[in-house]
């Protein structure tokens, strides 16, 4: 019995695995199918149609929210990736010292603190600033998204830096490259896949956020997820299914790209 223990051969394994997959994917499959429903109801099938996609596309609120999501997502992704790159360099290109572990934890804080807590805290914090400055633009959302995207950008970049052969940087220095040139010519090109992976991950995380955005946004600053949440409160139409389906496709595309970028060039 001791030889060749395999969980696959335990009784019930297939059942449990199948149940998990069904629970995970069946609702999504149903959602996608009903996006092509010609009927107005989400519970009865009225034939195949693309009309809900068309309707979503012509809905200015949807387009408006989508563009805002992209805008916030891209700015936040770029900013958080820059900060994450700097943080990753600072935490890997140094000898270990007391407090370094604490810094890792501090950088990854958004992964541990419940989103609702961050949301409430930012709401209170930003409202004070709003009163003080009078500014109520999209900047608050960008700042919030940048902050919680940093750990997601940081992790792949740090992993890449830790796997990089330090002798290469030493060799560059030995060949008369100043620290800046070593970074530009050696470290950065080798780090690039990690940076791209971090960037895409941060973008997807930003695009997907509901809780913190819901707390931080001002009136008329809906992102796609918060807009959808608002619509569902008023009853579901297949338009929501259509938007979700489009959103799903986009996420899958980005994550797939992320996967290929981080696997390539190793």
């Amino acid at each position, binding site marked *: 019995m001791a030889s060749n223990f395999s969980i696959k051969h335990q009784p019930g394994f297939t059942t449990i695995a199948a149940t998990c997959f069904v629970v995970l994917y069946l609702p999504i499959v149903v959602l996608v199918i009903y996006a092509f429903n010609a009927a107005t109801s989400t519970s009865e099938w009225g034939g195949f149609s693309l009309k809900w996609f068309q309707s979503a596309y012509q809905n200015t609120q949807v387009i408006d929210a989508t563009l805002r999501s992209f805008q916030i997502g891209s700015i936040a992704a770029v900013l958080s990736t820059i900060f994450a790159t700097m943080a990753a360099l600072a935490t890997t290109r140094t000898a270990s010292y007391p407090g370094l572990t604490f810094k890792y934890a501090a950088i990854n804080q958004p992964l541990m603190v419940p989103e609702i807590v961050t949301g409430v805290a930012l709401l209170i914090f930003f409202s004070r600033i709003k009163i003080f400055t009078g500014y109520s633009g999209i900047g608050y959302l960008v700042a919030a998204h940048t902050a919680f995207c940093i750990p997601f950008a940081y992790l792949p970049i740090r992993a890449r830096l830790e796997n990089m052969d330090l002798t290469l940087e030493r060799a560059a220095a*030995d060949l008369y490259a100043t620290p800046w040139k070593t970074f530009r010519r050696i470290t950065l090109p080798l780090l690039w896949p990690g940076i791209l992976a971090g960037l895409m991950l941060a973008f997807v995380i930003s695009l997907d956020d509901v809780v913190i955005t819901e707390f931080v946004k001002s009136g008329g600053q809906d992102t796609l997820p918060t807009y959808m949440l608002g619509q569902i409160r008023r009853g579901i139409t297949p338009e929501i299914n259509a938007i979700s389906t489009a959103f799903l496709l986009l996420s899958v595309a980005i994550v797939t790209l992320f996967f290929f970028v981080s696997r390539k060039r190793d």
Partner: protein
Amino acid sequence: MPDKPDRNAIEVVNVSKIFGSGEGQVAALDKVSVSIRENEFFTLLGPSGCGKTTLLRLIAGFDFPTAGEILLYGQDIAPLPPFKRPVNTVFQSYALFPHMTVADNIGFGLEMLGKPKAEIKARVAEMLKLVKMEALAGRRTAQISGGQQQRVALARALAPQPKVLLLDEPLSALDYKLRKEMQIELKRLQHETGITFIFVTHDQEEALTMSDRIAVMSSGKILQVGSPWDIYDKPAERFVADFIGETNFLTAAISGTGNGKARATLKSGTTIEATVAEGFQPKDNATVVVRPEHAKLTKDKGDLSGTVENIVYFGTDTHIHVQLDSGEAFTVRQQNTRSAGCGFERGDKVGILIGNDAAQVLRD
């Protein structure tokens, strides 16, 4: 080279390197001083952890000494960062830049020095030719073999014409045959470029065959500096004699010292003449070393007597292990011929003749 005026390329003066602090501190180098001459093939030889790589890193600038000076043609370079030292390194792992071609790797140092494009191109071509890699100039470094990577690493380090080239066990990753080939290649390159080479290795054979001079290191200290011949035939200390080649240690009573020689009376009662480690004044008792190939076995009475314990055949020669009547062990190496066996058998009572000028009195 003895025919050239001795000019020192590198002078290491009282250099110490201490890692850690408090009770956990370790002296990787302990007040080391050594001069490396211009245009010489100098080897730092020692077991791992002896400080040889630390010394190389201090010369390269990857680390800074805790105390002491490192002079490059008289100028103290110890506080300079690596990119300000006209010294280049061939790394043990080669450290070729994986995102660049062979040619770009070789030209990197010149580019960083801000040389004009045409000059870089010409120099890279020259270097490619020197290491016989012209055909692979456009390849990525991952697409070439280990031996080829080695050549590129050499060309890259030589391209900026450094005043000193540092080589950190560069042959250790190669298989035996390629290593032999590269040993000859390295000697050729050193000869053709006229650059001072400082080579680090733990391989005593490599050190003996390639070097003009060798520094034997142990526990953060340099024990002896000399030509391969000096190091092998006139070891100063037990560690040096033991680390390089095989040797026999005998206890002897010393009398009549003078002129770098002494008379050593062995436990068998025979007195032989021996050279004395430089600067050493032996007292009553000392250790004498005799290399196995500098002694001869005889069936008659010799300088020493004993019983054959074991015979090991090596192809080119045979090692005959003898238990001396004094209780000490002694090995004799005998050149093989095609005709008969070695002429001795286990259990034979034998005598050992020690050749003239075969014995050396050690410092310890």
